[in-house]
């Protein structure tokens, strides 16, 4: 399941950066904002792009859940209702969530850090390693997804994920948006708002909703993207870097 041929060659990377800059200077006209990575939805995604995110936890405000709400609205998670007669506590623990707002406390100093936790879009995803059907997979552009047509709902991926990023749909879902199909018996998780990216948009719902500008998103292979520039300028880390998963989501300030 690993894509060993996708390891990043630093020389190629700098070449792509220069090529991108050349394109930008030739195309940009006054008053026109171009998205360098706007793509044609009729062509397959390629590994020329790797989508990634940087979350600045020093900007992330304690008690703010704007990104979580925007995610739930965008992906129809707010339409999933508690089944009749269910135990509210169980429901709250098991209902689908793509982003969880979590708090980390340094026991020595008492300092509390708040951060959103979602699928980290690993280059070597453990969920895909353990999936018995191949439903968990990593797309060429770095997005880790579930093909729910072949997911059998075994939930091995939920156990394998070090980030507790995946949710299981336990009950029938009445209302589902066209762009976010959802049904009983499948696992799902953050997909970087893939329906937006596929149609040429370059932002995610959580990023758009963050009024603290704590989330930078873009193409990690494009030196000029907002996320690459942010990663270059601030000290960041992968969570559980010891697992060597090369995550697509990075954090600063933790």
């Amino acid at each position: 399941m690993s894509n060993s041929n996708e390891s990043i060659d630093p020389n190629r990377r700098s070449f792509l950066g220069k090529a991108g800059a050349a394109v930008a200077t030739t195309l940009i006209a006054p008053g026109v904002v171009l998205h360098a990575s706007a793509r044609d939805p009729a062509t397959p995604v390629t590994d020329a792009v790797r989508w990634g995110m940087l979350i600045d936890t020093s900007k992330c405000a304690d008690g703010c859940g704007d990104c979580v709400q925007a995610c739930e609205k965008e992906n129809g998670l707010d339409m999933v209702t508690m089944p009749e007669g269910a135990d509210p506590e169980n429901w709250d623990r098991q209902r689908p969530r793509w982003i969880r707002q979590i708090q980390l406390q340094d026991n020595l100093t008492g300092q509390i850090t708040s951060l959103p936790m979602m699928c980290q879009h690993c280059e070597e995803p453990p969920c895909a390693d353990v999936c018995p059907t191949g439903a968990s997979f990593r797309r060429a552009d770095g997005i880790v997804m579930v093909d729910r047509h072949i997911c059998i709902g075994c939930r091995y991926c939920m156990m394998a994920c070090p980030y507790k990023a995946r949710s299981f749909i336990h009950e029938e879902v009445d209302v589902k948006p066209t762009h976010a199909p959802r049904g009983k018996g499948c696992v799902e998780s953050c997909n970087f708002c893939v329906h937006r990216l596929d149609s040429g948009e370059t932002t995610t719902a959580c990023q758009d909703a963050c009024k603290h500008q704590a989330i930078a998103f873009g193409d990690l292979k494009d030196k000029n993207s907002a996320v690459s520039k942010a990663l270059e300028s601030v000290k960041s880390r992968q969570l559980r870097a010891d697992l060597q998963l090369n995550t697509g989501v990075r954090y600063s300030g933790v």
Partner: protein
Amino acid sequence: MLPVGLVLAIASGGRALADSKVGALVSGSKAAGIQPPQCVEPTPYMRRHHMELILHQRDMTVHEGIRGNKHSLAGCIDCHVARGDDGKAVPVNAEGQFCDSCHDYVGVSLPCFQCHATVPTPASAHK
């Protein structure tokens, strides 16, 4: 056997629901308003092979990110969904509607809509 069954179903469905149908099409749908009738492929081909087209498209969409081309399920629903006088869409798998009428007649399960939307959701709904 299956293609023959489907054609029979379309024919008989058309008779049984003559009030609400234009041939196999459901009146009040965009498809019923297209004259002469024109689907994304010739109608006889669609009757026999629509499931293969959708299956192929689903893999291209999920794994390769190819969206919005002519064999997408969302496109089928957008064109074939009936709209009432109030403009409200009727689910395509509701009794007597486009997908249901044949699938019900031949007793072929219709699992698409366990997960997929049965009415179009406006593109702006996710904003």
